[in-house]
């Protein structure tokens, strides 16, 4: 398998990373080298093998539906790039 330049640009867009034509070309070379390594997996017959998503075979814990955290909005918003009146500011989304 080998990624085309168009595919590289499309993935970059999906990942919301702006990429120049030059960068896309370098990235294409690197990614194809990495996928060559990854391709070794394709030769392995894994029919009937249960996928392993996690190191521990345990299920998610449940907890009481109770408030356990205190309100730390001011502290958390203090590290935001831009806030106003307790809200996070982003460029206008709806005209």
């Amino acid at each position: 398998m080998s990624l085309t330049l168009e595919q590289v640009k499309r993935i970059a867009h999906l990942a919301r990373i702006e990429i120049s034509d030059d960068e896309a070309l370098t990235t294409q070379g690197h990614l194809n080298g990495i996928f060559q390594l990854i391709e070794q997996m394709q030769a392995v017959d894994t029919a009937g093998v249960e996928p392993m998503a996690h190191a521990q075979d345990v299920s998610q814990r449940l907890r009481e539906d109770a408030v356990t955290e205190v309100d730390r909005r001011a502290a958390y918003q203090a590290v935001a790039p831009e806030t106003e009146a307790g809200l996070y500011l982003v460029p206008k989304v709806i005209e």
Partner: protein
Amino acid sequence: MINKSLKELAQALATKQISSVELSTLFLDRIERLNPDINAFVTVDREKTLAMARAADARIAAGTAGPLTGIPVAQKDIFCAEGWTTTCGSKMLANFVSPYDATVIRKMHSEAGMVSLGKTNMDEFAMGSSNETSYFGQVRNPWDRTRVPGGSSGGSAAAVAARLAPAATGTDTGGSIRQPAALCNLTGLKPTYGVVSRYGMIAFASSLDQGGPMAASAEDCALLLNTMVGFDERDSTSLNRPVEDYARDLDKPLNGLRIGLPKEFFGEGCDAEVMAAVRAAIAEYEKLGASCVEVSLPNSHLSVPAYYVIAPAEASSNLSRFDGVRYGYRAPEYGNLDDMYMKTRAQGFGAEVKRRILIGAYVLSHGYYDAYYLQAQRIRRLIANDFVEAFKSCDVIMGPTSPSTAFKLGEKAADPVQMYLSDIYTIAVNLAGLPGMSIPCGFVGGLPVGLQLVGNYFAESQLLNVAHRYQQATDWHARRPGAID
């Protein structure tokens, strides 16, 4: 004082031979003098450190001190610490002052009364094996400053090796504690997945990430691990297990220990002199009463390919949170919201992080998910099963930690695949979720060699015992790099 073990330092503090303020100052002064050359620390805050040291001295005076109260330690900059800049080695978080403590930090500060000397350099978002992907510059290996310290916990490793700190925290997703420990002549332990809380530890690949200690000896690691572990409600994968003292079995004799030697780790691909040092260490173990048995991990050659699907897939999801809205970097100029995301992430992430996000986005995308992501997870199962089978005939698995000694700065930086292959012996352990260690076992051309020990699930105490007995019989771990001062 700077070369003392944690136990000796604890005793010096308990007997008022030295105060925590004096001890911390000693290390802060060393950092000030030596760090500009080594670049192991990215953040030092003398006032914060001394405030913790004063609090520790008060605890010692009041008789409420724990075993490690007042001992200074370096923190990998992946752990959020309230009021401390927490960068994860990235431009994205270069100005992020954490509003909260990671559980590991909270335990070490509040419960254990330990003193943080600062935050250590690391590969950006822990993605790297040489510390060269850090936004804050490369770290130099104290054993040879033209070489890498390993990664991603390279700053922690260099800090302890140069005795800028008595011990440090690290994290290990594919070898990031063990490989730098090997390259810097340290003892490092990656616990069983789920033993150390991941809360506040900036996520790279959540099903693999695990924090652990890096220090000069197995005994130091055991004591430090005691302060890091424990069930945490705030980490959904934290395991609720009885508390244990990881130092309790250190002195147990090794008579009857069965060492498994995977034939796949003793074939081609490893430097011959590194292999000779590893074999000599195993011979030493036989003298200590252990016996060897050949085992097989037939799918281990697939661990690097499977890892480079699973880890980037998880990373692409985890790192989607860095969007310039709630914290971290935001591009100075942008058009609409999408443009803000695209420019923020293009400018805030380095090349290796972008590569892994792109791999992850691709293997998770429609039409490729089954062929890559699910296939990698199936292979992960095969790799884990290989270990289950191997542990039927042995107690601990041994082999090299890294296929070579520390390589030259820049040597592998241009070729991602070559860099990835430096973790060829460590990655399978993360995929299986097992505990692993690296301990010093010799030198090649003046550079340290690490012996990897892999234990069964929750066998940390046994691994530390196996490491400690070797360190009682040898002095590799006690060697220090020359020409530091």
